[in-house]
């Protein structure tokens, strides 16, 4: 599992500093420009795809988990809740490795999407639960008074009201997932940081690749976080 290039390279560098160009500048802008397109492609084709698809799975499955915990009979609800706790409280890295070795025939990227989707669904289910609990008791009583069916009550009354307040929290988890995507490194999915590491190992120039990866992460996550916190404030204000 430990990428041999990585371990060997760090050790080689420690023993023989000569392999690093001592005279050149620490950052070579020409080289950075050369590798930038490749990294950006990895970002768009893998990192973003995993984040987006993973978020969609997590948002949908999270709602299902939340509703299951609330409507299933006690023992079953208890099992679902602890299964969710189990997934939430164990490392994504080990979950990735576990599925990777269990389903060797599956595309690692699919495994990545599933693990991120399910892992974050367990977080999002908590957000939904809080949202559902914040729907006033009177709403439930009103649906009873109108003899609405359970399905209709959830679909038309409870969930629409619960969803509103959950949007910012879900957004924050999407950002967390985005920042966790480099963990795909352990199952060799060529997302951006893995690509950066490979470029480094091939050229013995890590600094440009890794710095670019860091900057792309910053450039993507910080504005999104700002946007979400603004949305959060507006929602808080509207309430």
């Amino acid at each position, binding site marked *: 599992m430990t*990428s041999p290039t990585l371990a060997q390279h760090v050790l080689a560098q420690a023993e023989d500093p000569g392999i690093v160009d001592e005279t050149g500048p620490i950052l070579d802008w020409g080289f950075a420009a050369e590798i930038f397109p490749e990294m950006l492609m990895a970002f768009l084709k893998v990192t973003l795809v995993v984040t987006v698809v993973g978020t969609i799975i997590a948002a949908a499955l999270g709602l299902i988990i939340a509703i299951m915990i609330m409507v299933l009979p006690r023992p079953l609800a208890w099992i679902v809740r602890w299964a969710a706790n189990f997934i939430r409280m164990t490392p994504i890295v*080990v979950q990735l490795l576990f599925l990777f070795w269990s389903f060797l025939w599956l595309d690692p990227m699919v495994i990545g999407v599933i693990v991120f989707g399910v892992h974050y669904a367990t977080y999002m289910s908590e957000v939904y639960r809080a949202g559902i609990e914040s729907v006033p008791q009177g709403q439930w009583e009103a649906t009873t008074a109108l003899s609405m069916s359970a399905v209709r009550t959830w679909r038309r009354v409870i969930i629409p009201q619960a969803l509103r307040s959950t949007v910012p929290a879900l957004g924050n988890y999407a950002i967390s997932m985005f920042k966790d995507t480099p963990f795909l490194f352990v199952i060799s999915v060529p997302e951006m940081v893995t690509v950066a590491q490979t470029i480094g190992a091939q050229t013995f120039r890590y600094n440009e690749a890794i710095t670019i990866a860091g900057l792309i*992460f910053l450039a993507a996550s910080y504005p999104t976080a700002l946007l979400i916190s603004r949305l959060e404030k507006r929602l808080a204000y509207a309430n």
Partner: protein
Amino acid sequence: MDWLDEQRANFEALGNFSDRILDGLITTVQLTVISGLLGFVIAVVLGLMAGSRSLWLRGPARVLIEFFRGISLLVLLFWLLYVLPLFWIKYDITLPAPQDNTFATATIALAINYGAYGAEAVRSALTSVPRGQWEATTALSMSWPHKMRRIIFPQAWALMIPSLTNLWVHLLKGSAIVSIVPEVNEFTFELDNLRRPTDIWFSHAFIGLATYFVLALILTLGMQALEARAKHKLGRGPSLWEILSPDPRPTPPDAASAAPPRTKAATTRPRAGKETE
């Protein structure tokens, strides 16, 4: 029976590897505890700075917090392992080099990353301490260190524990990525050795995930005890002793309300206590 034999073989392999697995477990616990404590120090320092009124303190703190939250843990780890050594080579720095001390480097990466998240928890807890408390310390002429240490922080502490607990579990989980760092043979790294003689279910699910889960539970329960103690000191909630002794009702991490008693909580309000206006 086939299956039984298989399990017997699995446990035999586990026995053979038990020393390494145990060492890996200890390394993971060390990583979690040391970087957790270091991260807490970082969180408190940055959190106090970010909550300060002076722009000279708040500005740099905000930049550091957003920077280290924004870049991913693995990017930070790679940067410390691959890019930072260049500065050592180029400028002949005599301090211990990051690539020679991979355990320390990994610990620091975890501490910085989760410390930056923790800073936000500390800051928001400090701002949640009622304004009247700050004003009372001014009216009593307390110095800044004095009021922080004795009045403000003890109250903020109770408020920040839940977020810090959450982050610490994240850190424990995040520490699994350190398995890719050379010469740090933590738990996830050793699981891979166990995978070869056994099978993936046994090594990664039965031993691996389950062990992490138990570690996370222990951590959560310990922090909940701390939280109960902190709240009791503020005169809210029973003491730890009262929780543990008479009628033990365990409250697992997220199990607070399976069937939410959404009956009267909102309508029957206790008589206006102290903070009503």
